[in-house]
């Protein structure tokens, strides 16, 4: 049996959870989903649409705001009671915060950032994605999946909502050492890029902050969110929450348009799961073209206005 641990924030299910459910369903065997939090009935109802054996809810006021200690206190007894062969999670920032502690608590190895299940093992990137490794792991374990490695729309729906029950696991709030304050957004326009359907991203080729508005216009014409590679955010031309890549967000939208981005591996790991990738770059040898579906080797200051004109015809 595979136990998938759902992720949610502010009452909304993280789409990466569904990708992980798809990974579990495609691995064969029975699948259960755990939903941990406080007042998470809606989240449980959403995931119960998938063809799974059971949805297990751990609902406790002490879990209202996420803490690593709280999640380990909730999930360790569940893993010990259910004894799944594998526990699957999406490889998100929240997972990175508690999954190693959970793994240590239940005495299981943890394989992180997997892009595929291969037999009894996994495929995961190493050396910043320049190499890939097939990893073997001993006995029951925990695995986390890179965003975009599996597709949310490949989740098999059940004929009827899956049975849902609440696990009787009491959380001793005095054992939670982290004292969380409510999450907040720093920038007014902060967006969750991982939920965007289309993204237009700019890199060094945009040359100056004054040109960022050109990319913004293209994004608007495409119904896309604006994003950037790291140098653009480090320079302060766009806020940090718009950064894609290993130190920013990982995204897998329907369409990703890379403007003046050369395609350093640190950027590629954050977007290569996108369904359709367009690269526009002056340098025909730029590595971004290796992962693009469509490429235009040209001056973005000529091509982008032409694209905007074409879209607004």
């Amino acid at each position: 049996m595979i136990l998938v641990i759902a992720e949610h924030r502010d009452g909304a299910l993280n789409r990466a959870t569904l990708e992980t459910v798809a990974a579990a369903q495609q691995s064969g065997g029975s699948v259960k989903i755990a939903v941990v939090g406080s007042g998470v009935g809606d989240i449980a109802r959403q995931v119960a649409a998938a063809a799974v054996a059971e949805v297990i809810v751990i609902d406790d006021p002490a879990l209202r705001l996420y803490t690593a200690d709280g999640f380990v206190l909730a999930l360790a007894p569940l893993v010990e009671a259910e004894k799944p062969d594998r526990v699957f999670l999406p490889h998100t920032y929240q997972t990175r915060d508690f999954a190693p502690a959970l793994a240590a608590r239940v005495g299981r190895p943890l394989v992180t950032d997997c892009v595929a299940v291969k037999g009894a093992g996994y495929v995961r990137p190493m050396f910043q994605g320049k190499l890939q490794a097939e990893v073997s792991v001993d006995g029951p374990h925990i695995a986390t999946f890179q965003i975009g490695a599996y597709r949310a729309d490949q989740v098999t729906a059940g004929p009827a909502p899956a049975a849902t029950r609440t696990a009787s696991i009491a959380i001793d709030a005095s054992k939670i050492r982290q004292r969380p304050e409510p999450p907040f957004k720093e920038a007014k326009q902060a967006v969750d890029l991982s939920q965007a359907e289309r993204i237009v991203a700019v890199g060094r080729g945009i040359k100056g902050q004054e040109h960022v508005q050109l990319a913004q216009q293209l994004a608007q014409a495409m119904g896309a969110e604006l994003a950037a590679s790291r140098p653009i955010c480090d320079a302060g031309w766009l806020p940090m929450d718009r950064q894609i890549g290993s130190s920013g967000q990982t995204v897998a939208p329907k369409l990703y348009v890379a403007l003046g981005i050369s395609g350093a591996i640190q950027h590629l790991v954050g977007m290569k799961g996108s369904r359709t990738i367009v690269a526009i770059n002056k340098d025909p040898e730029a590595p971004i073209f290796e992962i693009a579906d469509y490429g235009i080797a040209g001056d973005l200051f000529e091509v982008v206005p032409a694209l905007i004109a074409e879209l607004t015809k």
Partner: protein
Amino acid sequence: MKIAVCIKQVVTREWQLRVNEQKTWIRDHDASFELNEPDAYALEEALRLKEKHGGEVIVCSAGPARATQVIREALARGADRAVHVESDALATADANAVADALAGAIQPEQVDLVLTGLQSDDQGFGQVGVLLAGRLGMPHATIIMEVQVDAAPGQGAVRVKRELEGGWFQWVGLPMPALLTIQSGINQLRYATLKGIMAAKKKEIRKVVPAAAPAAQRIASLYFPEKGKKTQMLAGAPAEAAKELITRLREEARAL
């Protein structure tokens, strides 16, 4: 305040990777090595906390003899002394083995804070910090953007700003001792001065021999990923190429 910083030596980002004959690791005998970049930010944060609150920065590394290179580098940047858990096996060890090795080295130091980078540039587990916190019995918080220390006597506590995804942040309070994994880019890195390099030569590096730790996960095969896609290059004048691209995105890819 006593701060331990965990650092790792990794192959340089520019080095042309080659896989060994068994396809289980890289051919690193002729590689060039450097300080794992995410760890450099943890070191910098520790040095800044020491400058503000006083105390000592102890740099800890688990790796083969060659890791002395990055330990000296950290000492030259301003760390006070070092602990080197030395074993060839640690160069390719899994996260549990590295966490065991570091825990053994840090435990007797009785530190107030342990800082680590986000993940390593080589295996990239992103686990060692959190595993180490568990072994040391410390609370932890990850992907930290800012550290505020309440150094008032008897109230050893930190308040840290965590980066969540999607532009969200969160402040979290932790009693000390605590372990933090530091987000890359949170500070401007300093470089070693000549004076620092000279001073580093006299600083203590305590060597520790780790207990052998069995691996729970192994690399069965290491290889270059296949280039999965065939790129369709659209030629012609900008207006022409633009028109073709929009048509393809609408009709072929159905992405618009």
